[in-house]
Each structure stands twice: as structure tokens, then as C-alpha cells.
């Protein structure tokens, strides 16, 4: 797999690190938000087929965090955005 990094151009998978689902929204009220909201953010994930937004870290490159929209059934990368 190759990811087109907005800073570095298309680079091989081994330069990147996948960390987490980018569609989960961090509670807006931070630590004051109810535990349920935090539980959803930290633990609850959809495992749906099709396009998914993911956080990737260009760990062996420019250290940018990227939001990669990727179809998990075809592995096609649909877009790469900076947060």
C-alpha cells in the first residue's frame, strides 16, 4: 500500500503508522463531558465495509498526522487530508 503524503508525495506503507479511526469525535466539553460520550470516543467503533476515515502518522517521514479516507474492502485510498 502507498499513501500520498501531502508533504512528501506517495510513500510506502512501511513509513506510516495506523493508529485509530478518525471518524470518532472527541467530546467537545473535554473532561467535563459525561463518561458515556468518552466511552463512545475511546472504545466504540463501527467495523463497516466501505470507505472509512483513519488516522495515519508519517512516523518515518515528516511526522505529519494524516486523515486517510480508505475503502477497507478494496483498499483504495480515496483522499488524504491534513487534520
Amino acid at each position, binding site marked *: 500500500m502507498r499513501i500520498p503524503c501531502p508533504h512528501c508525495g506517495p510513500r*510506502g506503507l512501511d513509513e506510516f503508522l495506523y493508529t485509530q479511526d478518525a471518524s470518532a469525535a472527541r467530546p467537545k466539553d473535554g473532561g467535563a463531558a459525561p463518561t458515556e460520550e468518552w466511552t463512545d470516543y475511546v472504545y466504540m467503533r463501527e467495523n463497516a465495509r466501505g470507505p472509512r476515515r483513519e488516522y495515519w502518522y508519517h512516523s518515518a517521514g515528516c511526522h505529519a498526522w494524516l486523515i486517510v479516507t480508505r475503502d477497507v474492502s478494496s483498499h483504495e485510498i480515496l483522499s488524504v487530508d491534513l*487534520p
Partner: protein
Amino acid sequence: MTGYRLPAGGSIDRNRLVTFRFDGKAFAGFGGDTLASALLANGVRLVGRSFKYHRPRGIFSAGSEEPSALVELGLGAYREPNTRATMVEIFEGLTANSQNRFPSLKYDLLSVNSLVSPFLAAGFYYKTFMWPAKFWERVYEPLIRRAAGLGRNAGVPDPDSYEKNTEFCDVLVIGGGADGVKAAREAAGRVILCDENPLVPEGLPENVLVLPRTTVFAVYDGGTYAAITQLPAQTPRQRLVRIVAGRSVIATGALERPLVFANNDLPGVMLAGAVGDYITRYGVAVGRNILLAINNDDAAALIPLLAENGIGIAGIVDTRRKSSDHVYALAREAGVAVFAGAGIITAEGRLGVGGAKIRLHNGTMLRVACDIIASSGGFNPNIALTSQFDAKPVWDETIAAFTAGTLPPGASIIGKAAGHGINANIAPHWHSGITPGKSFVDLQNDVTVKDIQLANQEGFSSVEHVKRYTTLGMATDQGKTANVNALAILAEAQGKSIPETGTTRFRPPYSPVSLGALAGAHKGKAFKPTRLAPTHEFSTAQGATFIETGMWLRAQYYPRPGEDWLAAAQREVNTVRNSVGICDVTTLGKIDIQGPDAAKFLECVYTNSWTNLAIGRVRYGLMLREDGFVMDDGTTARLGANHFVMTTTTANAAKVMQHLEFCAQVLWPELDVTFISVTDQWAQIAVAGPQSRATISKIVDSPFDVTNEAFPYMGCAELTICGGTPARLFRISFSGELAYELAVPARYGNALAAKLMEAGAEYGIAPYGTEALGIMRIEKGHAAGPELNGQTTAHDLGLHKLLSKKKDFIGRAMAARAALTDPARLTLVGLRPEDGTSILRAGSHLLPIGAAATAKNDQGHITSAARSPSLGPIALALLANGPARIGEKIRVYDPVRQGDCIAEIVAPIHYDSDGTRLHA
């Protein structure tokens, strides 16, 4: 050169004689020969014994699809089993041996397996070795492994070397046949052409890079391909090539499938196309009297080729009822009989083909003498790689073969691989019917027609189940010559069509790849880089023993004559506690954080407050993950209003950096803060002990004042030392003594250590290593790696007071969950043996006294243990309801290392609990 080499022809170098050994006997071949062609030229037909039944086997094909001629290459540590003789180029001194035979190839005692073969049918192991279960490991498995299996592993580390590289191109052409070469010639941009064979096509334009002896074995996402290049008789031996291509052209051709009849595994039964290949490519006649068995017109091309080269043709058996005008015309020209509507029932011979029994169109039987049976059941487009593109194969009735499904953009398939120009006038013929002998479908795994029928009868009707039950197509050849015949036989047994039965999926690797090539140069110490501390030379000169911590090599202890590790470490602790010692602490992560919002940023990532930290002061900080568990800890110093230097634990340095970047780029992009790792830029040395101030004072440049009043505990400053060298000084302590950490640009690391040794000489200064560091941190009850294990909370470590109630921070809400502060959780305590002498070990379990050693009674475990020179054995432990139980006694149980003693539960801080020494 005897027998079977033709007087002319082939792309071999007849001027270059190459000698090699097979089964101890010397042979000669020509440059450009494969082991298979050279053996055939020498009249060697029997080259191995089969997997399950130990039946005699010969050379079946002329290419990478070879299921039969598998040999061991090399000797001793260089031995490489299961190598296809058809793919090995001979070189001077090559040594090869047949495998799976005992005691010799011709007299193989284990061929009795063939006599007991009714018991070795599909599913035999599953049915037979079911009980008793404990017999599996001790009795059944060793027996089966001895009898079955193919070649032997060398059993020692591979002395060969391998390498890897990456190539980029606009167009990757896979396969160097006529279609592939044409595609490569016509493609624009940078082109790479890979082919399994050694020959480089001539006259290609400059934009084409040809990789001969290179097999593309896997397809990955984003136009990434993996290929393996054989480098015969060279070091390195193989090269793994990662190819990144804009688009690919699959020109892998078609693979011939054999006809299936009894004893079709005898040496001398070959693919018709292979017989032709040995003539045209190597100038070798594989036999002198060849019987051709076909069901299509493509294979008839062999007839004139044999005739032209003066090779005898015993007859042409065509399973088609009427054969074809094409075949009749060629046969007439060659003066050979055609048996139309006939079929070979069985091959005859003991260690090789001596004849064949044919059933004629009218049912009568005929014996024909021959030394080779060349069979062709048609051709399968070679679509293994398209399967890796997730393109499901499609059955094409007109050519009786599977063709590639719809390929994704960026991949195309051409020529025979696409099903073009193959199987003219074919009438499928899948097997010769029930016969007394064995009719093999998969030669490498010894799977017969009956095995497939039996699997179906026993309910394994899905093609994927048949594969697993019979092991069909699961050998290293991936069933290249077997799968389609097998599917057809399964379809027939089920009364279904082939597309209804379906096909299995081809997975990487297309052909075997040695693990050495996947590792490349990254083995042993080269697996990861080694990071040397900036005082490494100093420590080496001081006689240090080193230990790996992550990638770092750190001084573990500095033994003096007669000292073991414990004596050295305890002496080093005493030196620090009584006088002064130095220790390289560079390996802790150092992150330089700057910007108007730097303090605000620290408030977000640390649990405690930072905006109120004065310039020139240091504070201990605790970081949580979003789920409320502890992530890391360390000290952070404020060098200016907008300038901080954070330290992390050695183990988590990269992880914390990544975390901070996530926080800054994703969570709080509005904060004006920037940071960079400076771990490698600064050499940092701890100077610890009552005489540390006196030592430091000798090297700091005036007017810097190191007195307790001017530079108290938790102070920090930028200064110069040794007459102008820039430095940073921190009054922080991990040892619990009056201590400093002094940082200088990394290149001065060794020099600073030497200067400190000189300055502290009058106090008996000594360097100390990670063992002494560990003893002192356990004495002081500091949590470190074993306690910051990702499962502990601030509450568990007694750090809950660091969770600010006045501000928000990462992990705040989740850390407040009741379950994370439950007193019954495993919580940090100290332990001391009741007898004062029993050694405590990390990993020991804590049980109530008198309770049985069961998981149910387990109340916690020791995380860190040490042998303190002043206190004796001590430990830190995580214990349920820990703090409430201080003063109680508990059983410390270590069944692995025979430890069993009673210990007293104490506070985690074993030494100087009020910190008077720190503030001195």
C-alpha cells in the same frame, strides 16, 4: 557427453563445460543448463521419492510449475531442501542430492508406504491419530514427520547472505515471452521486464530494465509488487525486489496441464511442452521413443519437432474421438500412427516408463513400448497473480480453462495468460477412469483421483474443503499442474459444471521464497540499529558491561577485579549514597518545546499544572492516555517563558513524541507551540551523591552559584562549564540523593564524563550503571517501566494527587471512572522479606498466608525487586487493597524459580522517606 544431448540446438553454451555432483556422482553439463536439463542429458531420470508414498519420481516439466523433481542443494549449513531442479542453473561445483529416500534413491525402504497406501488416503491422519491425545506430540507426530515430508532443513543458521532493494517504474511487465517483450518494447516511460529465466531478450530499448531470473511472487495495494531474483553461485544468493509500478502488464503465459492416468507419476511421464522445451532450449532429447498423449491441437507442435531432431515417436494417442486434420497431417508427415478416441490407461515400468497400456476407441487394449510419455491435457492461462488482485477467475468453455476476472485499473493481462491463442480444438479429458493403479492429480502432495472422490463422498464437497482435506494444491508448487484437473474431477463427482464447483484462490507467494530473502540484511545485530550513548567510549574504557535497552546500549555495571554484577552494582550504590557517582542518562527522551502556548500545551498533556511553573524550575509530570491509564512520566524544565524541555522514559520516547504531535496537529491545532526531539543532541549525565555539589562546583564557570540557596532542589539553568562549553544543569534526582543532571552538546559526552571523574577524584567518584540505578530507584519507590505497564492508573501508583481538579487534561474523564480508583485494584506497595534475607524476585505472586497457590487466591505480584546494600532484599509490588494492608504479612510465591517466603508489606519508599537527602 553421452546419450541424450542433441548434436545442435538450444541456447546453451557448448564451449563451457560445467561439472556438478548429484547423489555423490560427478556429471557434466553445459553453461546455461538447468540441473534438470543436465541430468536428462546424462540419461538420469529418477531424481527423487514422493512425499507420502515414496514413489520414484522424475522430471515432469521444464519450468517453475515443477511438482516432482525436488532436490536438496548444497551441503551442511548451505543445504536448501525442495528446490525445483528445473529452476536451478548449474554452476561449477554445484552439489545436489535427491531427497525423501532411505537408504538410497533406487532402494527406498519407505516405499512400503505405497503397499499400505489404502490407509494413507485423504484424511488418513485426521481419522487415525485421534486418540489418545497425549500420543500426538510424543508418538504420532515424530513418526509422521519422519515418514512424510520432503527435504530436510539444514538445521543450523543459514550462512548465505541476501539483499533487498526497491525499484520504481511506470510500467511493470511480468513475463518475458514474446507477448511480454512486445509489451515492454511498446511501453513508454521507465519499464521493468521480469522473467523467471536467465536469458535477456535482445534489442530492447534503453528505457526497459530487464530483471532476469526474477519471479514476481506477490501483488500488494497501490501498485506494489514483490519479486525474487536468483543470483546463482553468487553472494548474496537472492535479492528481494520491491517494485512500485504505475501500471502492470501480466504476460505470464499459460501452463500445460497433464492428462491423468494410472502410474502417471513414473519418471518419464512428462508434459508435452516440456519435452519440446528441452529440445529447443537445451538441445536435450528426453527419450528415444516418445509416446504422445493429447486432447488438443496445440500439443501437436511436438510431432514435427521430434521428427526433425530424429527422435522416435511411438505413437499419438488422441483422446478426441476424431482427432483433427491438423494432427493427422503432422502425423502422416512424420510417419506415425494416430490412435484417435483412445486413452492411456496406465504407464508401465518400475523406476521409469517402459511402455503404456492404451484403451483403443473400440475398447480393446494395446501395449505400446516407449521410454517417455509426453502428455498434454490443454493449457491453463497463468492467472495466479490476477487472483491476488482479487479478480475471481472465470471459466471459459470455448478453451476449457479459467481466465482472469475483471482486473482493477492499473493492471492488464495479455497473450496466453489472457487466454488468447491456446487450446485450439480442445476436447477436455480429465482422467482415464477407475483403474487399478494410482492416478495422480497433485504429484507434489501425492493426491490421487480417488482421494478427491473420497473427500467428496465424505462430505467435503466445497472446493476449499477438498483442498484442505486432501492437501491438494497446498504444496510449494501451489498445484500449478494439478488444480484445474482436480476441480474437473470434483465437478464430475458432484455432477456439476466446473464453474458451479468453483476454484480456490491463489495466494502469495506464487513460487517459494526463502525466509532469508524476506529478512535480507536485517538479521542478527543488523535487525535494528544500535544506539550508542555519547559516553560509550568512556564506559568502554572503564570496563563497563553493557545491556540493550530498546535500541540503546547502556552501561549496566562497571565490574572491578573479583566483582560479579551484584557486587559491582552494590558498590556503585554505596559510592552514590556515601560520596558521588556519575551515570549516563542521555537515553531518556528529551523533547524541546517552544512557543507562546507551550505552557498551555503542557497543561493539556500532563495531569498536573504547568502555567504556574517558574522559569528556572523543574516539575515532575504525569501523562495519561485518553482511556485514563498512565502513559508515561518524567520531569519537564522551564528554561524560559516560552521554552520547556520535557524528559520521557527511555522506552516511551518515540511514543510520547508521536502523542504530542497528535495533540498539537489534531486535538489542539490552535495552540501556537512547536517541538522537536533533542534526545540525540544532548549528552546528559547524572551526578549523584552527597559530594555531587562539590564535584559540580569545580567545573561550572563563574559566576554560576550551585549553593542550595542559589540553586535549590528542582532548579534548572542554562550556563557554561569548563571555560565556555554551553550546558544545561538540572537539580533533579532519581537516586534520592543530592543530585544534578548536566547536559552538554552530545559530542562532549565522553569529555564531560572524564572531567567529572577528574573533579570528583578526591571524593572517590565512580561511574554507575543501570543495575545500581535500578536498585536506588526501587529503594526510593519510583515507578518505572515494570509499573508503567499500560494497565496501571494514577491511583494504582499512588500518584492520584497529581490529577488536577482545576483544569482539563487528557484522560481526565476516563480516569475518574469508579473502577479505575477502586481500592481493591492492584496498588503499589513495598515488600521486605520477614527473615531479612530471602531473595525477592520480580514476577512472584502474592498469596494470603496458608492459602493454596491457585489463580483464585492470587492477590498481586512483584513488579521490581532489588538487593539493596543497606536494606537487603526489597521489592515493589502491585497488591489488591495495597495501601490499606501496610504492616500485614503475605506469602511471596515463585514456583518457576522455587521461591516461597513470607514478606512484610511496607510503603513503597524504602529509603529516606522524608526526602532530607534530596534537599541537602
